[in-house]
């Protein structure tokens, strides 16, 4: 590899990442632009660039986005939200708990941003009706969404990327991360309920008004709902059985999406135009950018340095990656971070005699839970804040951090103990 290619490649990578972090230009535009520069300056060929794109990640994301976009048309989420608010008899503390559970479960199956887009608008309407400040609910939902998303392969993009690279499947994520996330979730919600106890009070009249809501009215298309739930169930069963049936998760998601389009008879254009193509192209650009570093040998260089630093100790590496991922992900976009770390950990683990599974779990936990720490820590947080602010309620950076950052630290302490006890 000529030196000028090495210098140029590293320069393009660093400048692109700085531009992504600065958020001055749309992250997708700059990632694809940077990827284009890598090819134009012959850091890697077009064929190499395309081979670096992880189509398992993209396929899984697109497939699930199609399914979710159809399900959301049915009004299912509004139905569940109204039903749970009525189950809570309009009692704000119970609603906070039920909405947090709903958010966490939905986030485990859908991506976090989609979950937030479904749950926050409903929360705002319910809070309006109950004459409550929605901020405690929104903060609980942001945290629940990140925690729920961390529990499964399909819940958060870092997990999709880790799964795509390592072959760790849906069941592996459930078995290894779900128990930890359940504990973290319970502790987080209990503390949040305690912290916000004074704001969670509503009057009898507004409760009565809320109880007059009819959840059945929320379902817009019963037939479509039945079909969508059937396909979602089949798809999730497919994820669970993916190893047994020897079909990768992206193919399962894409097949689920195609099947739902087929049986729902919804115009594909209508659904496909709602796919978050900016996210898909962002991923594609990142894969090429990070792939360039692999071609240049930069990843190998840093892998060797990390091995030197940790002396090859899995325990040290797991803890370093867990805590470093947490702090970095709480302030920066975790997607480019994980996109870079995935080939790095793969390179470190090549030829190792021990299993690197704990390191992968540490990366996943740190990247996903780190996002809960600040209001800019994850896309879902930023979207939730945007919607809430448009509704007239401000969630300040430090106001959120004062509550969420200590909770994030507590969850990482719990995760450290979990990894040390069960894996190291």
């Amino acid at each position, binding site marked *: 590899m000529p030196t000028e290619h090495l210098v140029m490649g590293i320069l393009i990578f660093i400048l692109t990442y700085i531009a992504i972090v600065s958020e001055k230009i749309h992250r997708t535009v700059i990632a694809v632009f940077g990827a284009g520069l890598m090819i134009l300056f012959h850091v890697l060929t077009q064929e190499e660039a395309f081979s670096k794109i992880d189509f398992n990640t993209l396929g899984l994301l697109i497939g699930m986005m199609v399914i979710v976009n159809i399900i959301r048309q049915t*009004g299912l989420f509004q139905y569940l939200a109204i039903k749970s608010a009525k189950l809570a008899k309009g009692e704000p503390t119970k609603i906070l708990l039920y909405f947090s559970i709903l958010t966490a479960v939905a986030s485990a199956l859908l991506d976090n*941003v989609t979950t937030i*887009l479904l749950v926050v*608008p*409903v929360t705002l*309407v319910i809070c309006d009706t109950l004459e409550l400040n929605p901020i405690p609910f929104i903060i609980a939902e942001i945290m629940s969404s990140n925690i729920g998303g961390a529990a499964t392969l399909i819940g958060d993009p870092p997990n999709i990327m880790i799964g795509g690279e390592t072959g760790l499947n849906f069941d592996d994520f459930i078995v290894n991360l779900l128990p930890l996330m359940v504990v973290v979730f319970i502790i987080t919600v209990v503390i949040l309920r305690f912290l916000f106890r004074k704001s969670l009070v509503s009057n009898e009249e507004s409760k009565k008004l809320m109880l007059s809501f009819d959840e059945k*009215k*929320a379902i817009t298309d019963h037939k479509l709902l039945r079909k969508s739930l059937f396909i979602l169930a089949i798809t999730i069963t497919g994820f669970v059985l993916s190893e047994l049936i020897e079909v990768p998760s992206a193919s399962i998601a894409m097949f689920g999406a195609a099947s739902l389009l087929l049986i729902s008879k919804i115009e594909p254009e209508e659904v496909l135009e709602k796919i978050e193509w900016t996210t898909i192209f962002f991923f594609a650009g990142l894969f090429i950018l990070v792939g360039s570093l692999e071609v240049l040998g930069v990843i190998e260089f840093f892998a060797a340095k990390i091995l030197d630093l940790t002396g090859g100790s899995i325990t040290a590496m797991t803890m370093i990656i867990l805590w470093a991922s947490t702090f970095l992900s709480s302030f920066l976009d975790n997607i480019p971070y994980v996109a870079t770390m995935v080939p790095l950990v793969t390179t470190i683990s090549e030829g190792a005699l021990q299993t690197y599974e704990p390191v992968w779990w540490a990366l996943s936990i740190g990247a996903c839970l780190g996002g809960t720490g600040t209001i800019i820590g994850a896309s879902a947080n930023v979207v939730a804040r945007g919607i809430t602010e448009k509704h007239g309620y401000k969630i300040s950076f430090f106001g959120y951090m004062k509550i969420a950052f200590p909770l994030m630290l507590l969850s990482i302490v719990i995760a450290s103990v979990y990894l040390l006890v069960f894996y190291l």
Partner: protein
Amino acid sequence: MNRYIESESSQHVMKLVQMGGDVKVVSGKLFYVEFQVSEQLEVAYVYHLNKHNKFFLERTKPYPIPVREFDSADAICDIIKIDVEQFKNAANSHHLEKFIDINSEFHNMILTFEDLFLYYNVDHATFERIQQDIDDIHKRINDAKESASRVYFGKEPDYLEDK
């Protein structure tokens, strides 16, 4: 931005459905069109283009008025073309300002009449008197047509002949 529109839209749907409404959200493109037909006169329209073949055209300037509902998107540009031509023609009239003032008054009158009905229990005789006044105005408009010379021949009037 789409995310925020989606969020806003689902809040609206939820509130309206719970109020008992039957809500259909139609995606499409909203057009705002403005024509500066003379130095003093601006004509503006708004319409929503969608694939459900129901198009609502509304003129927003010089005074707001729903124009029509169409089943074909092509008809909208034709109607706007004629409308703008007519206003270009009307812009030469010395009575343009008065015409716009009277139209605005008609519009305000509809709103005040609505307030009267929605906020007060009005007796039958008042409605009868208002109806009579409106009939008189209709008659005056039709009489005026008989004695005035026609200035636009691009198409036939939509309403005047029926009265």
